[in-house]
């Protein structure tokens, strides 16, 4: 983990950590991955190292690249996000998992916790929540936002 934190980068405007962060995006919609990438790249120290379009592919990339954070959708073909979360814990134990989904129920968030996720962000709130979440995870803090969650 420490090997990936390559010291200070030039600080971006206002937000974000100075620590480098290697990020894997797993979502079956290219437009969403593109949007996420735009968001992530607002912090110049952060890098999207790979993108995957389904759970299986996501797992392969996680094993191969051992990223700092995997941003994982829940509803995906081949392997869903909860299964992927469990699998990543085995094959890439140091990778933090941030669930990013449109499922806004308390129950689903609990499911994600149980599966071992480190964070949970509602997709439609990604614009404001994704960066704080990534920051929290990079500092080893869990991030389960209540924003957009229905009880």
């Amino acid at each position, binding site marked *: 983990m420490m090997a990936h934190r390559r010291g200070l980068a030039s600080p971006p*405007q206002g937000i974000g950590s100075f620590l480098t962060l290697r990020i894997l995006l797993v979502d079956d919609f290219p*437009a969403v991955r593109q*949007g996420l990438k*735009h*968001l992530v790249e607002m912090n110049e120290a952060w890098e999207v190292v790979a993108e995957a379009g389904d759970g299986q592919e996501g797992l392969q990339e996680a094993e191969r690249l051992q990223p700092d954070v995997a941003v994982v959708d829940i509803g995906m073909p081949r392997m869903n996000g909860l299964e992927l979360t469990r699998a990543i814990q085995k094959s890439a134990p140091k990778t933090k998992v941030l669930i990013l989904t*449109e499922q806004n129920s308390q129950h689903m968030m609990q499911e994600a916790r149980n599966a071992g996720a480190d964070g949970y962000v509602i997709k439609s709130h*990604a*614009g404001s929540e994704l960066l704080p979440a990534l920051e929290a995870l990079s500092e080893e803090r869990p991030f389960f936002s209540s924003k957009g969650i229905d009880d």
Partner: protein
Amino acid sequence: MSERQSWIIFVSGIVILILLGAGTAAVTSRYAASEDRVAHTHQVETLIVRVRASLFTADSARLAFLLTGDEARLQQYRAELSELTRHLGNLKSLTADNPSQQERIAALSLLVEEDRSLMERSVALKQSGPADETKQKDIEQQCHGILTRAVTLLGSMSEEEARLMNLRVGTSTASYRNILRVLVLAGLIVLIFLGLLFRMLLKQLSVRKQAEAAVRQLSLRILQLRDAEQRKLARELHDSLGQALAAVSMNLSVLKEKGDNIAPEKRAALLTDSLQLVQQSSSETRTISHLLHPPLLDEAGFDSAARWYVDGFTVRSKISVALEISSDMGRLPRKTELVLFRALQECLTNIHKHSGSTRVIVKLEKRGSFVDFSVQDNGRGIPASVLSEFQTTGGGSGIGLMGLRERVNDLNGEFKVESNASGTQIHVILPFTEPGTSPSQPEQSRHTGSSAASPEKTPPSSLMKAPVALSPG
């Protein structure tokens, strides 16, 4: 078993029972009459015996008087004579219906008169003085002759009555047997009718059970189909709209956060991406909504809606569709157009899913007071077992065809499916009527925008059910 058949069986049962009742009454009264005749004959026979007895008793009483001169005997003789007259009178009236017996009675009466005058002479002779043996003997001989003839006559009367008796007892027995026959027949007929009715009842019950099972199955399938439709719609909404909107919101967040601190080419890329996503969402929304219920159908009619649907279908399925709608068709009532459109959707969807067709011909023609809508494909046809089950019980096929048939029946139309290995042809024939008195107001409903405000537009929640005609409640 139709209601009419039940009535026929019931009414003919009643008629047969009435006939049997009348028959029984007739046979019984004939039996009673023949029993009366038998009793009558018995009476006549008894009287004959009495007449004979009276004749002899009178004669012996007279002889006793001649021998003893006892007045009591004379009294007895006279009493017996009057008895004899009474019996003869009775006999005559009882046999009034029998001419041969009447003749005999007439002859007998003469003999009795003759006998009586002889006997009176002998009595007078005795009373007049000393016995004149020769005269008395002469009278005695004559009396004897008369009595012998009377007895012969009475004998033949007896024979006649015995003959009649035989005849009448025979008739009576026959009548009795007839009664038994009629009763046995009646019993059998009642049994047969009960059997028939019982069978009808059982058949009715099993038909009803089947119908109930079919209804249950239908509603179950409707629910399943609705679930499937809802799942499909949920998926479509999620995939086409949710994801695009999430992506746009991310792009906008970046623009907002960065403010002016963003490279112009980056800003342009974000804006282009977002614009494209929004346009794509807008078009997807339109497609989803229009597939659920095309506004063209209300606003421009079946013709335009069908052309729109067929164009989209051809793009999606790569199946070529020839759409032939008679030019004089014009607008049809809203309900009719909706059923035709659902028929088109259902048929083309089935063709795409199951038939393996490459070409489809869709026709809508006006035929007298009907419109004939047909869809013909060149696919592999519906499997014979599925088709025959659909045509006999209505089951076997997917809910789609059943639902379609229900819609068509609701409009008093006719729904026909013909299918073999070289293709399937489906006909929907609906009564043709001019559009009703409440035409849609398409321009208004389109431009007022708010879908909830316009009753012409179905709200989204019921749109989900729209493809299922039979959704309960």
